[in-house]
């Protein structure tokens, strides 16, 4: 089972959980339909699409409303703390949640109580707090962009807003930022660093650089990082090794972007409709042998 955890932008902080399905441009959790603009709904919709197209069981999602006051996040943390130990999820993806070390640690320790440790994926606010907590190396996958990578590379920064100026956020500085994040033990085992080039790293080593197709407007389009996190989560859930899933997901996300022919004004929902086609294209061997170091992949 894949469990996806995060908040949605609405005032009502009641907990919603259930199977995630994508249909008619909406994503649903149980019987609740959510519009897909960006954020958590975009992430779970992308995961559900990949699961549906690939024949994987649909993911489960746990969410509540939070517009930044932290109430929905805390309610969700509290709800999960008592249930995570017994939740039979093999992979957990944490997303938009208010960064709070106390709650992070309670969630993390509940997971630690489990006999079989799940694959832990973190993006957005939960990735920030995973770094701040000092437990980043216990996570299997983070998906930072360059601004967030600079935050991971700065062992003093409590949030990307406080990343020190001498830690340069430039594209050409990515390898040294990756190295610094791993040296400071502020990185997960595997990372996808999103940008003009997507860097796939494992334990500090850059394993692959995905730079094609290069679709310049994607950086401006809100939610394209969320879809990447959803795609990689679904592939991991489907049995792909994390590094392999990361490479495939970066490729699929770029292909969907290329197929949509976006401008910087395009919305992510317009790109998402191309994920099924991008998935089948990426699964063809000639595409997987594209412009990055060729490797032999093994499914778990």
């Amino acid at each position: 089972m894949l469990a996806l955890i995060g908040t949605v932008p609405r005032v009502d902080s009641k907990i919603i959980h259930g199977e995630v399905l994508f249909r008619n441009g909406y994503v649903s959790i149980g019987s609740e339909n959510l519009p897909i603009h960006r954020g958590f709904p975009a992430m779970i919709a992308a995961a559900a699409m990949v699961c549906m197209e690939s024949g994987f069981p649909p993911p489960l999602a746990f969410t509540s409303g939070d517009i930044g006051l932290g109430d929905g996040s805390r309610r969700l943390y509290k709800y999960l703390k008592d249930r995570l130990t017994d939740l039979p999820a093999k992979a957990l993806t944490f997303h938009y949640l208010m960064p709070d070390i106390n709650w992070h640690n309670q969630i993390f320790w509940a997971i630690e109580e489990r006999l079989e440790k799940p694959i832990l994926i973190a993006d957005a606010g939960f990735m920030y707090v995973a770094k701040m907590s000092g437990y980043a190396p216990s996570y299997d996958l983070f998906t930072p962009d360059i601004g967030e990578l600079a935050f991971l590379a700065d062992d003093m920064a409590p949030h990307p807003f406080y990343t020190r100026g001498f830690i340069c956020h430039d594209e050409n500085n990515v390898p040294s930022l990756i190295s610094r994040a791993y040296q400071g033990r502020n990185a997960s085992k595997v990372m996808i660093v999103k940008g003009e080039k997507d860097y796939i790293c494992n334990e500090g080593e850059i394993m692959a650089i995905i730079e094609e197709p290069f679709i310049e407007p994607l950086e401006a389009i809100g939610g394209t990082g969320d879809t990447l996190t959803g795609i990689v989560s679904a592939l991991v859930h489907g049995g792909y090794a994390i590094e392999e899933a990361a490479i495939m997901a970066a490729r699929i996300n770029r292909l969907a972007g290329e197929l949509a022919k976006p401008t910087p004004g395009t919305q992510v929902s317009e790109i998402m409709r191309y994920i099924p086609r991008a998935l089948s294209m990426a699964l063809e061997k000639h595409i997987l042998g594209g412009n990055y170091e060729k490797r032999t992949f093994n499914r778990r």
Partner: protein
Amino acid sequence: MNLKGKKKERNSKNDRGFLVFHNTSEVIRAEAILRKKGWNVRVMGPPPELRTGCDLVIEFPLVEQLNIFRILKENRMPPLEMVPVDNPLMKPVDLIRTKDYGDYIMVRAANMKMTVEKNTLKIVNISGGGCPDVPYVAEELIGKTLKDAPSPKEIGHTLCAYALHMAYEEMKKICLL
């Protein structure tokens, strides 16, 4: 490996900040305001870097800085400073990058990006960030012009919204508003 306890003490303060005030009576009044609003805050002695004459500071959840500042300002109690507990001399990021896409322009501040269509000055995309108000603020801003859109600082609550506000201010400067 069970890491419980090993890092608990070392990292438990990383997400906290200090509110600094002119004097002790302001600290006491600010604490009362925040507690009444349900915030989990704590009054304590300041670190040496923050000795400004006042013997007390208030510890608060740093990420929720924008919301707390707004509440204190509404109550005419704005703090002198809001700084991270672990490194009170640390300042907000001042690196702002601009990318020109021809018909569109994108501004990035820290982890937040705002894109505007040049002809119409309409906000067409907001990208990046991880705090829960980012999708909410994006929904409120996208589709509106820079003149009509609310400021991220007014409707946001967290440091991500603060970073977006910096991008928004820079965008207004570029667009000569």
